[in-house]
């Protein structure tokens, strides 16, 4: 498998803010400079730019990747924008690795920048304008309200266990100085339960808060990383994605997601089982999405998510560390939702600081992208990362 021949040699992050006072291109520049400083490589060595979809600021510009290359003065042989919503971050790593392996490029700059609060240029063209906006279905919270109510009907749902997820992630954000300051305040399970309803049964503290910020990665072949002395690096050893899971079927169980298929593939490719997972960094646009991923990946059976959360210590020093930077929900949803990936890279490099996990044998990172009509989500991705041995 070609992914194993590539390495993530550096990561960079801006501070996540409620609303950026800087232009998105300035954030791009901060990330580039940080990565050049960390790796010691020259700008001229970067011969690939992979930017993410899920940028509301970049939306509407059909030349976004090229525009970004031009702003940064990058001359590249591979220029790509990955468009699978919240799967774009993991998807970008896989695509960069494939391009490196195919000889299309040697040193890739992966850039995840978005300032949706400062500047939202998005205009979607899909079913919503005809079939759901018409009924006042309020964006992702509305869709996850429908999903959650159905889950509760099928299996029962202990909302206090969603509260436990909220508190665990919030505690991690308290230790993450890159997280949005507004979210770096302790909360309790009762704060979660009592937070105001947005789209019943979705509460305010179930939801991500859109924020502004950027992250980036540098990738190259393992051979090249070794030659450059970049030994503290992270290897993506497996990846799978599934878009439009069961999309050619009519009535489906909406509590099943593409993570069921992608998870099996990625774990098999990595040669590990769920029992071997050392830390888990699932996409978290809503808390219920974490529970559904526990179930769909196979950490527990369908319907047993509440019990699984009750039975496990998900804090950074627990038996199954979860989103140790705070997740998107307590970091702020910025940087094209790349923070859970970047956090996994940081942990495997041993740079977790006060929130460093003990077991850095591997990390499991996922993505969720787009929301479909009355089901769960459009794309599911699963990636296993390991440190350089």
């Amino acid at each position, binding site marked *: 498998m070609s992914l194993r021949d590539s390495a993530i040699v550096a990561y960079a992050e801006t501070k996540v803010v409620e609303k950026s006072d800087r232009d998105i291109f300035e954030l791009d520049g901060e990330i580039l400079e940080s990565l050049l400083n960390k790796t010691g490589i020259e700008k001229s060595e970067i011969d690939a730019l992979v930017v993410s979809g899920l940028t509301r600021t970049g939306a509407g510009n059909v030349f976004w990747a090229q525009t970004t290359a031009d702003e940064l003065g990058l001359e590249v042989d591979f220029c790509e924008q990955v468009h699978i919503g919240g799967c774009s971050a993991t998807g970008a790593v896989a695509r960069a690795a494939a391009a490196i392996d195919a000889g299309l490029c040697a040193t890739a700059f992966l850039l995840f920048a978005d300032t949706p609060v400062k500047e939202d240029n998005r205009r979607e063209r899909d*079913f919503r*304008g*005809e*079939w*759901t*906006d*018409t*009924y*006042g*279905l*309020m*964006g992702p919270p*509305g869709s996850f*309200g*429908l*999903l*959650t*109510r*159905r889950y509760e*009907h099928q299996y029962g749902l202990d909302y206090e266990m969603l509260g436990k997820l909220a508190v665990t992630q919030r505690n991690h954000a308290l230790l993450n100085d890159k997280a949005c300051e507004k979210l770096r305040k302790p909360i309790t399970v009762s704060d979660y339960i009592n937070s*105001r*309803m*947005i*789209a*019943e*049964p*979705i509460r305010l503290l179930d939801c991500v808060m859109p924020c502004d910020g950027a992250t980036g990665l540098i990738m190259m072949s393992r051979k090249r990383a070794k030659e450059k002395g970049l030994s503290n690096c992270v290897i993506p050893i497996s990846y799978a994605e599934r878009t439009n899971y069961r*999309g*050619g*079927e*009519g*009535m489906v169980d*909406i509590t099943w997601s593409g993570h069921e298929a992608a998870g099996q593939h990625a774990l098999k490719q990595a040669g590990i089982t769920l029992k071997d997972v050392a830390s888990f960094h699932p996409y978290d646009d809503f808390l219920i999405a974490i529970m559904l991923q526990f179930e769909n990946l196979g950490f527990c059976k369908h319907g047993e998510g509440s019990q699984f959360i009750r039975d496990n210590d998900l804090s950074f020093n627990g038996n199954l560390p979860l989103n140790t930077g705070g997740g998107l929900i307590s970091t702020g949803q910025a940087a094209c939702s790349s923070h859970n990936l970047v956090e996994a890279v940081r942990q495997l490099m041993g740079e977790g600081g006060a929130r460093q996990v003990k077991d850095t044998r591997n990390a499991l990172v996922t993505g969720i992208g787009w929301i479909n*009509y*009355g089901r769960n989500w459009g794309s599911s991705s699963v990636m296993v990362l390991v440190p350089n041995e």
Partner: protein
Amino acid sequence: MGDVSKLNDTAGAKRVIRRHGFAKPFWEGTREKKLVIQYCRATGKYQHFPRPVSIYTGRSSDIEWREVSGRGEVFSYSIARRGHPAFRGQEPYAVVIVTLDVGVNVIANIMNCTRDELRIGMRVGPCWLPLEDGTNLLMFEPDRAAGVN
């Protein structure tokens, strides 16, 4: 924000509907308060929302439009407490997914329904909200003729 024990019918919402050309048979049917949806001849299954092809076979030639009763049961629901911009002031209102008896899920609002009544499995039937262009918007209401259910 209104009394959260009641549900708004959303008849006052200022809806702007962006229609796709290939959904025209659906909207034309609503002029006579008929629910006309896509049916795949090859598989004998319905689909909604309208697509350019059968989602089962990938072929437009398998698609025909059939009138259905619109009766079914609530599959899930969410109560909006902070509305979509066109629905501000209508809160709280319910968005429901209804499984039609022909085996397809449809998202809409529910009218003439109290918060206490609304639950998954409740029988519903279609009702129609007039739109300015002479078409009608598909909504649902409790099927009280179905009795206690």
